[in-house]
């Protein structure tokens, strides 16, 4: 070293002085750290609770639907009384239970008369077994055999009873007893058989109806939605001088002027959005949705045509020297030889992810609120940027942000007709990040107010 400084001493000196230095951070700084550490848990708790509640709703509904699908097996038939049901019965053949055809026909006749008044599932099961065995031996179409039962008697109960060994014993005993009785009353059998044959047509029809009803599918929780939303777009401008090195500091008009809106004359223009969503009904009132949306947004800027001149756009810079982009333009903000209307236009593709909450209504007419977060990609744009001295408008595509995030809120009235839901209502869409990237010293946020007209249909 030319100054003959002691290296170690110098470093010790520096370290000592640097370590003595303390700077107290702002309270906001701790809040940021704290929020970053604990918001995740809040979110998880909230999200978990939401999921849990949605799950409860879903399974609650599913359980109820399950019950009703079971009861679909015991559907009411047109010809039956309100409290009677029809159950299709599949026969099985057990050789040991083969009995006298004549007797079995009688059994069947008795059974068809007697089952309508059965109320005890165990009894029903025993006689059902009786019935199927008899059917095999009497050459009656077994698949057409139907049993009238009380609504409270479920198929599962019947099957479990059929499978019971104890009932088998009871069944055999009953069969033997009844066979003896029926043999003695041979003269009574013929009219009963005729009656049975006469009812055959009705039985077949009942069977078909019953099977059709059993095969009824549960309504899908998924819906497909299409919508169109005309809107008007406003913009809000704000200062983005994030660095002390920004060249904009040296420009008189722009310095210390955070209200940029005062220096520009812009007015909203009509744009539109179109999209499609898949809706998932988590419960009666809550529906989640996601899809694709195409948005065309624009607004008009009042400017003046002028001779070609240089426009400087100052950039935020982290380094010691600020950067500037120079562009040539013939549009001025304040004065020129003729008024001109410029249009800033954006075509965006977004993926709305959100939920709908039904607040009021019945099956047909409903009032719902909805919200989405929309990661957005800018497909095309035609944008004039304000120069640093606010004097000119120039195009500089490199300063336009490609990825953005929007939020959307809407409230709508929907009406169900013919399995299709029509909806209409106001919507509000807000751009969370500036249209321009962080290097540009002005931030722009687009705000859209519009109406959404949509139609959705259940996916089968």
């Amino acid at each position, binding site marked *: 070293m030319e100054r003959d400084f002691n290296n170690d001493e110098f470093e010790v000196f520096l370290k000592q002085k640097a370590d003595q230095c303390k700077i107290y951070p702002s309270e906001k700084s701790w809040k940021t*750290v704290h929020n970053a550490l604990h918001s995740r848990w809040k979110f998880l708790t909230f999200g978990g609770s939401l999921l849990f509640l949605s799950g409860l709703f879903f399974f609650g509904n599913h359980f109820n639907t399950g019950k009703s699908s079971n009861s679909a097996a015991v559907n009411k038939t047109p010809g039956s009384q309100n409290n009677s049901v029809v159950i299709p019965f599949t026969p099985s053949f057990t050789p040991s239970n083969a009995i006298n055809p004549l007797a079995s026909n009688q059994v069947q006749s008795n059974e068809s008369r007697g089952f309508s008044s059965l109320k005890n599932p165990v009894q029903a099961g025993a006689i059902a077994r009786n019935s199927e065995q008899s059917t095999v031996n009497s050459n009656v179409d077994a698949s057409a055999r139907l049993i009238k039962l009380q609504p409270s008697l479920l198929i599962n109960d019947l099957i479990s009873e059929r499978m019971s060994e104890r009932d088998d014993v009871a069944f055999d005993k009953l069969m033997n007893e009844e066979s003896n009785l029926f043999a003695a009353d041979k003269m009574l059998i013929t009219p009963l058989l005729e009656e049975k044959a006469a009812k055959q047509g009705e039985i077949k029809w009942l069977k078909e109806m019953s099977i059709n009803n059993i095969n009824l599918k549960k309504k899908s929780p998924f819906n497909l939605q299409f919508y169109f939303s005309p809107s008007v777009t406003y913009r809000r401008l704000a200062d983005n001088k994030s660095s002390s090195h920004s060249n904009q500091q040296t420009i008189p008009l722009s310095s210390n002027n955070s209200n940029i809106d005062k220096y520009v004359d812009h007015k909203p223009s009509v744009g539109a959005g179109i999209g499609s969503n898949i809706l998932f009904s988590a419960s009666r009132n809550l529906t989640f949705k996601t899809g694709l949306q195409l948005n065309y947004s624009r607004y008009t800027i009042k400017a003046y045509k002028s001779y070609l001149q240089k426009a400087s756009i100052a950039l935020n810079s982290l380094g010691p020297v600020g950067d500037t982009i120079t562009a040539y333009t013939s549009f001025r903000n304040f004065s020129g030889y003729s008024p001109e209307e410029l249009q800033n236009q954006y075509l965006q593709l977004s993926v709305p992810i959100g939920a709908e909450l039904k607040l009021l209504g019945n099956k047909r007419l409903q009032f719902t609120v909805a919200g989405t977060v929309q990661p957005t990609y800018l497909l095309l744009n035609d944008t004039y940027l304000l120069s640093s001295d606010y004097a000119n408008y120039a195009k500089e595509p490199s300063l336009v942000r490609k990825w953005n995030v929007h939020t959307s809120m809407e409230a709508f009235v929907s009406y169900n007709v013919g399995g299709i839901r029509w909806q209409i209502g106001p919507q509000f869409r807000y751009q969370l990040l500036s249209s321009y990237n962080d290097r540009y010293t002005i931030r722009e946020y687009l705000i859209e107010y519009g109406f959404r007209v949509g139609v959705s249909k259940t996916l089968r």
Partner: protein
Amino acid sequence: MTEESILQGCLRNESIAQKELYNRYSPKMLAVCYRFGHNREDAEDMLQEGFIKVFSQIHTFRNQGAFEGWIRRIIVHTCINNLKKNKKFSESVDLIHATTMQVREESVPSIVQAKQVVECIRLLPLGYRTVLNLYAIEGYSHKEISGMLEIEESTSRSQYTRAKQMLEDILIRKKILQKPKEKSGFFASFGK
């Protein structure tokens, strides 16, 4: 609260312990960030990011060294990572650019004591300042610095030599230090 109880509380993700730890170490760590950062806002951003890492990685602390040293290493690495995101930083640690950099005399502020020294360090060009901070104050070797900044070890040495020269000039110009020929002791003029 003792350091052990703070550590245990932080391991249980308790806000009180976290705030205590933050209050205890953030002033020193903000000074570290301030030496590396472009301005106070930058420094606070780095501090926040660093402390979020500290709290989320606290289970990896093995009690094999000082807790403060462990926090400091995380903070320094956070600062370096932040600086590396800036294109201009990689240019500024380049040796060719370093030779042409000058400090404007009029920009040296009037300051006192430790803060005075820190402000003088901050007057150095970014590349110089970073290497000097890492080598002279944080105690990293040139080999480690070359790895951290992704530069040659020789570049780190040269940067440090030039940074030191420049800082000495600044300190002497600001009369914080005196030339050794004029005084018997280099640090004689500086009140410790």
